């Protein structure tokens, strides 16, 4: 089980990377923790791999104004342990604990996981819920894509041929915001059967915002504003269930996924509220 042959390019700069990506059937190699298995199983066979691991300008995590920027080659493990992330966008770290195993997180990148647009990806849901901005550079210059416009379908984004994701910016959440991420998987570290990220805001004891992103139940994360219903579990569940249409597969039936969503949404919102309270106090 070996990858088929490809041309390997290791660019020395972002413009060089963009030039290399203009070649036909090219693909970006960052952490490679999702891409390499696809290549080994020959589910993907790009002709050109553009390895961005040497581009130091794509490394790091920075506070830029009211946003937290994560570079395209920042490894999950670095994001998971970085104090800026914990302080300003704790949801990212809450979600990352579910991403595979520590050994995979040592190499895999958070931005790569978003660019991969896996519907079961925890960070895909985080980006969608927070309205993250995906920074892209291509043959026609730079552009930003909002997460909602970025995720088009399973493993499909609105990136066009020859574009490179250089980083993702997440809005900083002050201490009035609380968040949480919960999921159920067959085994720890596996893809979730269903999962939920929740985000709430509490101002002077009053709930002023509440939204969730459900993952692994559709081709893209399902983001729902639940402020109007989140105090009544029955109404909450009715609203959520009317907006999802999970599939049956070998891992779980659609009905079981609906049942999981019901439980996980309630749990995620409760945890997000206590997270908000602990952040204010």
């Amino acid at each position, binding site marked *: *089980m*070996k990858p088929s*042959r490809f041309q390997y390019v290791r660019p020395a700069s972002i413009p060089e990377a963009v030039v290399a990506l203009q070649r036909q059937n090219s693909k970006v190699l960052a952490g*490679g923790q999702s891409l*390499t298995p696809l290549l080994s199983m020959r589910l993907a066979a790009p002709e050109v791999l553009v*390895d961005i691991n040497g581009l130091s300008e794509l490394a790091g995590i920075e506070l830029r104004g009211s946003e937290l920027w994560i570079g395209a080659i920042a490894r999950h493990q670095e994001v998971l342990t970085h104090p800026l992330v914990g302080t300003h966008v704790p949801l990212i770290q809450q979600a990352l604990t579910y991403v595979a195993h*520590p050994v*995979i997180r*040592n*190499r895999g990148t958070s931005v790569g996981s978003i660019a991969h647009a896996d519907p079961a990806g925890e960070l895909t849901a985080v980006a969608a819920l927070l309205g993250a901005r995906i920074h892209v550079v291509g043959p026609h210059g730079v552009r930003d894509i909002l997460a909602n416009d970025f995720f088009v379908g399973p493993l499909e984004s609105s990136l066009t041929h020859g574009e490179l994701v250089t980083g993702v910016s997440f809005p900083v959440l002050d201490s009035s915001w609380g968040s949480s991420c919960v999921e159920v998987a067959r085994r720890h570290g596996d893809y979730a059967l269903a999962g939920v990220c929740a985000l709430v805001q509490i101002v002077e004891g009053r709930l002023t915002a509440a939204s969730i992103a459900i993952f692994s139940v559709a081709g893209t994360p399902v983001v729902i504003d639940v402020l109007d219903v989140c105090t009544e579990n029955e109404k909450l569940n009715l609203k959520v269930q009317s907006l999802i249409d999970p599939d049956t597969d070998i891992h779980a039936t659609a009905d079981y996924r609906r049942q999981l969503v019901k439980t996980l949404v309630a749990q995620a919102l409760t945890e997000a509220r206590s997270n908000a309270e602990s952040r204010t106090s």
Partner: protein
Amino acid sequence: MNPEELFLVELTVNGNPLSARVPARRLLSDFLRHDLRLTGTHVGCEHGVCGACTILLDGKPVRGCLIFAVSVSGSNVTTVEGLVNNDGSLGVVQRAFHESHGLQCGFCTPGFITTIHAFLKENPHPTEEEAREAIAGNLCRCTGYQNIIKSVLRAAELIDSGVRDDH
């Protein structure tokens, strides 16, 4: 078809500078086994699930089968062979596996040894729960894991008691 382009990959493996010219698609696990003849690293599932090929890349455990050798040229790699003491005696995690019967067929063992070695550097006094969590990404089909967890805790004990470990 044109001959495949070869790339010079230079690594420091277990302290020794080693190199070979290989195609870009050569996985790091295969580079170690086929090109450098270091067959201690085992290849199980070859898609990142089983953990048998886990090696230390600049000190951190990674899956050898999920990395192209060419992509990490210039790095430091430690394999299970590199975790024996300089005098050839078993390293502390290896010794703990031996003492606690942490292996049967031994196929998964190199991945466990490297993973646990790195884990104990970060967390020298794990609870049983933490030990369990630490090995959650590695598959073993023989032991039922109980003795592997014992081995993790035993290794921590050995380190505490000052048993020789050169790594």
